Structure formats: C-alpha cells, structure tokens
C-alpha cells in the first residue's frame, strides 16, 4: 500500500499551522491551549496511524531546477518515530496546563512546542536530504526557544545558547555530509534524484561502492556521525543535554528524552543500510559504548533528579547508537526496540520527576525520600518504568538490553576486530552495572522514610498523573508481552534499518546463553554496588574537581569564553568610536579583498597592450581636475577648499561634454553650482580648523596610496575585460527608445520610461535628504544648546 500525500502533508503541516495561530488561540482559551495542542497531536497521531502498514515515497514539487522536492518516505521505521512523537506529544500537551499553571509566556511555549512536533514528524518522514536538514535544524531552533523559556534567568540563557551551538553546529556538519552524498548520488541514482534519500537507500550497495570510489565514504560517515552525535548527545558532545534541563519539565520529557535527542539515533538507523561496514562498526559501536559508560557514571554522580535522568538519557542514547553500530541484524533490533522502550519509560520518568518537583518544591536527590506515602500512584508508575530502565527482567528494558549483549558478542563474527571483540561486551556489561545503580537510586526516592526537609506534599492533579500512567501502562504491556510490540511495529522498523531480513523474537530466556550470563552479571553487580552508592557518587564527583579538563563543559566554557573575549577585544580595536578607524579598516579590507580576488583569478596583468584611449582634450581636462583635487587637500582654509572642490566638479562636467554625455554635463553643472552655494552658506557659520601631526599624515598617505593603487588596477583590469563595441543592452534601449518610449533622447527615455520606478526611488532619496536637512536645521530642541534659538 502506498502512502497518501495529502494525509502525510497534513500530519506534518497541521502542527505548524496551529503554531501560527497559537497567540490567537491563547487569547481565546488561556491556559487550556494545552488541551487544544493535545487534540492537534492526537489528530496527527490518527493521521499517521491511518498510514500504518503502507510503504513508499510521495513528493511535492519544491525546487525542481535543483532536484529538491518535499519528499516523504513512509515505512515502519519512519512511522514508529513519527507515531512516538505525536503520541507522546499528546500526553505532554495534556500534562502541561497543570504543570505550567500561572506561568508567563505560555503562548510562546505552546507555539514552540507545536512547531517542534511538526518538525519532528517532518524529520521522521522526510526523504529528501534538504528537507531532512531543514526539519532537523527546525527542531534545534524550537529546542532553543523552549530551553530558554525562562528568558530572564541566566542559567536558561546559557543552556539555550549551548544547546543551539552544539546541535545547530552539528547540523552544519550533517549538511556538508549531505552535499558530498548528493555529489555521488547524482551519478548512481541519476541527477534528477541527487537529493532523494529514498532512492539512494534502494541501492545501498551501489551507493557505498560509489562513495568508496570517490574516496568520500569516510568523510561522509564522519560528518554524519558528528551531526548525529551532537544531536543525540554522544560523548564528547553530551554536555549540552544536562544543561538543557533548565527547560520546563514537559519540554525535557518531550524533546530531551523521547524525541529530539533521538533524531540522531533515528538518522543513524536510517543511513545504516547504506553505510554499514567495518568503519561503521568501529565508529558507532565505540562512540555508543563510551557514551553509555561515561554518562551512566555521570548519572550516578548527579545530585538533581532531572540531571540524573538527563545523563541516563544520554547513556541510553549511547546504547541505541552502539546497537545500530553493530553490523548484524541483532544490532538493528537493539536500536529499534530500545528506541521504543526508552521513549516510553524515560518520558514517564521525566513526568514523574516533574510531579515530584511540582509537589515537593525540590529536585535535590539528597532531600527526597519516602514519597510513596504521599504519592502512592506515582510510586507504582515509577516502579514499573525505573525497573524497565534498569533492564531487570521481565520489564521491557531487559529485552532490548539482552539484544545489545547478543549483538556485542556477535560483533567479532562478521569482521575481525581483534581485542575489540571482547572489549565491546565487557564495556556494555560495565555500563549496565551503573544503569542498575542509578535506576535503583531513583526508585529509592519513593521508599524508606520521609526526610525532615519538606513539610507538606500536595496531591498531583489528574492531568499530571494520567500521561505518565499511560506510558507506564504501555511499558507494562510490552514487559508482559514483548512479542505484541514486535509484531505491531518493531519488526517493520528492523526491516527498514537492517541489511538482511530476520524474524525478531524476544521473550524471557529459558536456557543459559552468554547474553543471559552478561545480564545476570550486570544486575547482580548493580544490586551489590547499590549499598556503596554514596562512595561511588562522591568518588565520581571528585574527578572533574581535581582535573577540570576532563569535563566537556570545561572545554565548552574555555572555547566560548576565548571567542567572546577575543571578539570583544577586536570590537574595541575596530569599533572605537573614531571615524578614521572605521574608515581605515573598511578601506584596507576592501583593498586587500579586491586585490586578492584579482590575484586569485590572475587577471592582474592586462591582456592587451596599454593604449591611450582618451584623447588629449579629455586627458588635459581630467589632469586639471586632479590638480584641483590636490589643491583641495592642501587648502589651508575652508573657503579655498570649497572653491577648488568646485573647480574639480566643473572639470568633470567638461569631461562629460567631451565624452558624449550632454545630459550628465547639464546635471553636473546644476549640482556643482548648488553644492558650492550650500558649502559657502554652511562654512560661513563654522570656524577654521587646522590640521595637525605629520606622523598621521604619513600613515594616511600610505593608506590613500593603497586605495588609489587598487582603484587604478581595478579600472585597468575591468576596462580591459570590457567587450568591444556596443553592448546588447545598450542596443536594446537605443532601438526601442522611439517605438516604445516615444523620445529621441535615449538617456532620458531610459530614466523616465524604461526604468521609471528606479527614478522614482531616486527622487524619494533626494526628497528624504531634503526633509532630513530641513529637520536638522529647523527642529532643534531638547538638546544642550536648545535655548540659543
């Protein structure tokens, strides 16, 4: 079954359309706008659901001359991601009104959230490289607005800027990768679909061979990895994600756990069939497992519940990246299945964190405990999703982690990777130990006794409880019957991301296998390590304190600080308020760029012999003009300067006469006369001012000579390149002046007929100058000397 274009377009476009009218909607509905957003998300979910089971590409013409189209590809993988985005979006919009009660800037909040949902559905479905890039960056932009929701707080601003810099910067790497890819794709799938990712993925082997022949395979792989790694918070670009927790919690649940950060993972899965290889394995399995380990350790070191969840999100994203990195079909199964499981349990955990923060007023792990007494339903929800996160059987996270262990064990079966063959499984188990530790720590917020820190815990309202409860219910369903999820959507997602087809089966293991042993070691290790949580927590926290360069955040601050500092230093040097400094920099830069341009295209040497193209009369008149110019420079009084400037102007007027331009001569004569009169009127009011300093004269002289030389070279080079005879455009106007303009003076016909609007614009400029002059002279009030008149 082929997807239907109108439905796909509506699912992508509707959130954007509603985002556009959100300010009006907010005026009518107030805080209930969130429920309207929930309805929009539900409609999108329904629209996407109606495409369930279809597969194919639909497109809308966009820039046909560049072979760019608004092209959407629907398959199991795209639908899984888009359905997750709209489904979780529905719950987030339902949750927000109660959580964001009585806050300001809600119209902007909901508009950005809706636009974000449209972008994420777009990035899931888009099959055109340019469209993917566009939606990809739109998600970063919406994320920037949402992280910086509390616009007055420094922390929000810092976090929003950091997320923007890292994710958008990563997106630019991706763009370069796309352009390289399209260079190769033009030859393989035809120039008409050079940006058509769906077409490329139909011939993955030919694409990979062609990429290797052009020597572009490794660059494209690396650029995609940087883009996806920045978006999905992979080490060493993971540091923006914990900072992004400055955003309101619904945003953290939606963008920074369930959807936006998964875009990188999603895209790695998308590109997998085309780029899978030994390099792919080493790159992504290593990045993924390092991220999984480092961020699991950092999650143990976290002091804030949202920080814990943020690091754990990055760690799980590492798990998915590593899964996709393994080249066997088990790798694809890991990535797809864990993406689904993680979206469900982590969104629920963030919503739980939101409830805890909202009802107790604190997010500090050390201050919280015994919450099951006050929040019994939340405690049950947390038990399901936290145990799923830990990967304890029979909860859903266990199945996908088991797949990772199997994939890690099989990694060395396909390629000979030496020591990495046993290092990968070992690291995966090591990281999983800490996953169990921090999951138990989160769960421990709800057990034990209440600390004395807070007095009264409110009961959460129904709309705060229903969304996480639904997500926990789904997690429970997958836990009890994982085959249901596999049959419903995971299998079709695996088919789209795996190289060869394989029927996926998951369930509680009934016999021993190495992967089962690894799971047992991880869980036992985690449970045994939990009692020494305090020591681990303090130990990991001490490392970045002892050696700051270990932390990626330190590098970010150092780089951004240096850039800001040197930018400020440059600004004080170039923008120091002195006119001559501005003029010097502008002129010197222009000259340098112009001459460099001529030198680069090696046009400095004129091709023709230098000829005297001006006759003696013209040369003489212009020589007088130059002498007059020299006199202006040397003039000791303003009056002398104005008069010699006038001589220069009149000489130019005579030059126009000699150069067959009578209209110019007339205009120049009128203008020169007027300028002379105005100058004389003004300088009468102003005292003389005498020049000083010989040193500066020398410096200015050097710059002036440089500018003069540049102008000289430019005139030589450009007049040399001028075509001989009359140009086509000149002939066009000369021939049509009489038939179409009805006048014999070609210049006048051009000005008032052919280019009438330009002349109108020119008149507006002159009128504006006149009005400004009038204003400057007559309207003088409020200033320091206002009482003189």
């Amino acid at each position: 079954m082929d997807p239907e274009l109108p439905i796909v377009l509506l699912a992508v476009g509707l959130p954007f359309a509603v985002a556009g009218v959100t300010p009006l909607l907010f005026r009518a509905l107030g805080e209930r706008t969130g429920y309207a957003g929930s309805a929009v998300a539900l409609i999108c979910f329904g629209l996407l659901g109606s495409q369930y089971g279809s597969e194919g590409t639909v497109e809308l013409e966009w820039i046909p001359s560049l072979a760019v189209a608004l092209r959407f590809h629907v398959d199991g993988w795209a639908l899984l991601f888009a359905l997750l985005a709209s489904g979780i979006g529905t719950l987030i919009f339902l949750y927000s009104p109660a959580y964001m009660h009585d806050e300001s800037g809600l119209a902007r909040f909901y508009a950005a959230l809706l636009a974000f949902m449209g972008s994420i559905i777009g990035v899931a479905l888009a099959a055109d490289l340019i469209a993917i890039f566009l939606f990809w960056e739109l998600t970063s932009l919406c994320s920037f607005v949402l992280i910086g929701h509390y616009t007055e707080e420094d922390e929000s601003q810092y976090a929003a800027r950091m997320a923007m810099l890292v994710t958008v910067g990563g997106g630019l790497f991706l763009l370069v990768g796309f352009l390289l890819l399209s260079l190769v794709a033009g030859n393989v799938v035809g120039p008409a679909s050079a940006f058509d990712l769906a077409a490329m993925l139909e011939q993955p082997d030919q694409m990979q061979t062609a990429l290797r022949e052009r020597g572009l395979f490794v660059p494209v792989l690396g650029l995609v990895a940087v883009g996806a790694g920045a978006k999905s918070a992979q080490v060493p670009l993971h540091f923006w994600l914990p900072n992004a927790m400055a955003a309101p919690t619904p945003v953290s649940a939606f963008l920074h756990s369930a959807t936006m950060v998964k875009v990188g993972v999603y895209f790695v899965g998308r590109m997998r069939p085309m780029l899978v290889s030994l390099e792919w394995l080493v790159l992504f399995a290593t990045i993924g497992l390092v991220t999984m380990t480092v961020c699991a350790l950092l999650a143990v070191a976290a002091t804030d519940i949202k920080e814990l969840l943020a690091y754990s999100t990055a760690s799980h994203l590492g798990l998915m990246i590593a899964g996709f990195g393994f080249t066997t079909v088990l790798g694809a199964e890991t990535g797809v299945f864990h993406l689904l499981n993680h979206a469900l349990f982590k969104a629920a955990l963030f919503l739980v964190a939101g409830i805890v923060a909202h009802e107790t007023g604190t997010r500090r792990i050390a201050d919280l405990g015994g919450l099951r007494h006050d929040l019994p339903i939340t405690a049950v929800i947390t038990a399901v999703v936290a145990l799923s996160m830990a990967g304890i059987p029979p909860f859903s996270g266990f199945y996908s982690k088991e797949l990772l262990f199997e994939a890690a064990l099989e990694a060395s079966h396909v390629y000979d990777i030496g020591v990495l063959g046993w290092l990968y499984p070992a690291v995966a188990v090591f990281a999983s130990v800490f996953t169990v530790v921090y999951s138990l720590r989160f769960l421990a917020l709800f057990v034990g006794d209440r600390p004395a820190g807070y007095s009264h815990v409110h009961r959460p309202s129904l709309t705060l409880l229903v969304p996480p409860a639904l997500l926990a219910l789904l997690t429970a369903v997958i836990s009890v019957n994982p085959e249901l999820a596999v049959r419903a959507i995971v299998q079709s997602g695996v088919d789209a991301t795996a190289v060869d087809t394989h029927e996926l089966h998951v369930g509680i293991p009934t016999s021993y296998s190495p992967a089962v042993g690894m799971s047992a070691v991880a869980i036992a290790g985690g449970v045994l390590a939990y009692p020494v949580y305090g020591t681990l927590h303090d130990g990991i926290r001490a490392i970045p304190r002892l050696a700051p360069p270990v932390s990626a955040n330190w590098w970010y601050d150092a780089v951004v600080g240096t850039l800001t500092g040197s930018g400020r230093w440059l600004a004080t040097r170039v923008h120091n308020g002195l006119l001559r400094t501005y003029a010097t920099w502008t002129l010197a830069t222009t000259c340098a760029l112009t001459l460099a341009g001529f030198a680069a295209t090696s046009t400095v040497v004129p091709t023709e012999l230098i000829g005297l193209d001006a006759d003696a009369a013209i040369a003489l008149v212009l020589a007088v003009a130059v002498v007059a110019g020299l006199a202006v420079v040397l003039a000791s009084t303003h009056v002398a300067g104005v008069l010699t400037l006038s001589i220069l102007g009149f000489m130019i007027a005579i030059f126009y006469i000699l150069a067959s331009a009578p209209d110019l001569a007339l205009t120049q004569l009128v203008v020169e006369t007027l300028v002379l009169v105005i100058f004389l009127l003004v300088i009468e009011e102003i005292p003389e001012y005498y020049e000083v300093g010989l040193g500066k004269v020398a410096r200015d002289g050097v710059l002036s000579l440089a500018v003069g030389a540049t102008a000289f070279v430019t005139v030589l080079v450009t007049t040399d390149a001028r075509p001989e005879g009359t140009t086509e455009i000149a002939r066009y106007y000369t021939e049509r002046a009489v038939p179409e303009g009805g006048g014999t003076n070609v210049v006048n016909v051009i000005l008032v007929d052919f280019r009438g609007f330009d002349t109108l614009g020119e008149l507006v400029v002159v009128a504006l100058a006149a009005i400004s002059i009038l204003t400057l002279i007559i309207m003088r009030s409020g200033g320091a000397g206002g009482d003189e008149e």
Partner: protein
Amino acid sequence: MTALVLALIVGALFALGTFLLLRRDLIRVVWGLAIISQAANVYLLAMGGIAAGTFDSVPVLAGHDAGAPETADPVVQALVLTAIVIGFGMTAFALVLSYRVYEEHDTLDVSELGDHEG
C-alpha cells in the same frame, strides 16, 4: 581596450579622496566623500567606453524615424546621472549633518567627537 589615462586619473582622485576622508576636520571628510563619488562616476562612464564627442556619438537620436545608430552607451549615462543626483543628496546631507554636529558639540574635530561617544 585598457584605459590607462582614465585609470591613472581615477586612481589619483581615489587617493586624494581617501586622504581627505581620514582628516580630523569633519568638513574635509565631506570633501573626501564628494571627490570619491566624482571619481566613481568617471569610472562608471569609462566602463561604457568613452566616445569622442561628435554629433553621431551622443545618445540623442536625430529624429523619430532616424533608426538606431551606434552611439555612446546610454545605459551607463543613465546610471551616472542617477549617481550624480544621489551623490548631491548625500553631500548636502553630510554637510548639514556636520553643521548640526558643530552646533551641538562646538567642535568639528572627529577625534574629540569620538571621545564624546565614549
């Protein structure tokens, strides 16, 4: 054909204009602007090719049915004509602005004005 004479003239005028642009006296800065715009006009006209002034080369046709003879390039002339007028507007505005600056600050020294800005 390369225009050596015009190149020399335009280069010289640009150099003189730039030198004035860097003076401390605001009035001389305005002169510099005026000279540079004159030089730019000469350059523009040179790009259209300079035809010696004869009855035929002027881009004014002899009559309504005279056909279209080879004339000097009318397009650059239209451009330069616009440039002259705009240049006039700019010079006049800059001059009056300087006058107003003098009224407000009692000085035309650009370095002192820079200090005012802080």
